[in-house]
């Protein structure tokens, strides 16, 4: 397991630099939007990665509630943290692109709003984990993750209807993607997935060690209490 880590780190670095070269230099310039469009190679892979991490968070939370397995809890925590980071990247790069292309920073479009609501739900999940004083934080967090996942289809339909009533200036995905662009997009997605995996892995190991240290400390203070008596 441990030997895989540097290999993954090297693969990630290579993929990220190759993806950067492809996105900024090799990919053809988009006809109407110009160079601004290149942010798309970072925006879309981040979004896909964030959604995948939130999906893993949901599965890990359900697993935790059924099996009460500490590994599933750590996995849920780690994927929520890294997912929020990627989701933030999506929400920051989106407006940077939208301003020159649509002329506005933000619109209450279906996908934008859904991403924002997801971000809000997972930030509240992380806050619960941070502020919880109970030893049962994993249970509370897993339950909240399930509520968040149940909320997603409802948010989707409510905004879908809201939007069909108030059309917004969205150009949408009319037309097909140039195969060259799709190729760059996929390379960048692979790079981002490796990066997410790498960060999650590091964070996972850190959390395991952290919990071991805490356990050892509480055991030590228990033993000291025994000795002094």
């Amino acid at each position, binding site marked *: 397991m441990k030997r895989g880590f540097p290999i993954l780190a090297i693969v990630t670095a290579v993929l990220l630099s190759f993806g950067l070269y492809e996105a900024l230099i090799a990919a053809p310039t988009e006809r109407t939007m110009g160079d601004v469009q290149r942010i798309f190679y970072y925006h879309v892979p981040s979004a896909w990665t964030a959604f995948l991490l939130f999906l893993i968070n949901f599965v890990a939370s359900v697993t935790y509630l059924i099996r009460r397995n500490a590994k599933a809890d750590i996995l849920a925590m780690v994927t929520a943290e890294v997912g929020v980071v990627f989701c933030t990247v999506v929400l920051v790069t989106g407006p940077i692109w939208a301003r020159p292309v649509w002329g506005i920073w933000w619109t209450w479009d279906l996908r934008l709003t859904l991403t924002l609501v997801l971000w809000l739900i997972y930030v509240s999940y992380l806050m619960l984990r941070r502020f919880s004083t109970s030893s049962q934080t994993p*249970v509370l967090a897993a339950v909240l993750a399930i509520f*968040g996942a149940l909320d997603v289809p409802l948010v989707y339909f409510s905004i879908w209807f809201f939007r069909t009533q108030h059309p917004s200036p969205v150009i949408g995905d009319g037309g097909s993607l140039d195969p060259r662009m799709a190729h760059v997009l996929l390379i960048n997605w692979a790079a981002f997935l490796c990066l997410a995996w790498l960060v999650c892995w590091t964070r996972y190991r850190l959390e395991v060690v952290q919990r071991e240290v805490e356990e050892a400390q509480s055991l030590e203070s228990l033993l000291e209490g025994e000795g002094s008596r």
Partner: protein
Amino acid sequence: MSFLAILRATLAKDLLLEWRSKDAINAMLFFSLLVVVIFSFAFDPTAEESRRIAGGLIWVAFLFAAVVALNQTWARELRNQVLDAYRVSPAPANPLFLAKAVGNFIFVSVLEALMTPLFVMFYKLRPLGPAWELIPIAILGTWALVVNGTFFAALSIRTKSREIMLPLLLFPISIPALLGMVNATSAILTGEESAKFWIALLLAYDVVFTLACLLLFETILEAE
């Protein structure tokens, strides 16, 4: 004790406590009164404008006021270790949850019944759509707020600064319900479109989250 007996006993106890102290209802009433007055000053709307914004204002005022009642739902039970006693007793968890949710539903409904005439007066409201549809919207919308609110209050009593934690957990999840209530109310006030879709959405929200709360409440109650 049977399911219904526990539900009835807990509900009667909470209603009696509230009837004697009137803590929650007074705080909620005064709070939403302040919201009405401040919004009215801030926007100074004409009759036509207020039709468009009133749906949002009413529900935001009720949502914020409801947090007051929701926050004290479980706090009262912590003081004399009532929850611990409940946990060790063989009584099922769900009637306790339902009693608390129904209690909050009653408190918030009373608040709405008292505040709505004031809203109508201050904002010169006269619905142009089918006004009777406001009743199912109010019932479904209030239940949507209190069912999840009661559940998340049980989550947030296990955290530091729990009074702040409840809205932080409740508001993001409640976004579709709020969209439903606000848009359904606005649709009826302006009479421009049908509120059917939003009522259906609220119904779906209520069914999904009531089931989720009933399935998961025992896990939360036992988590200590």
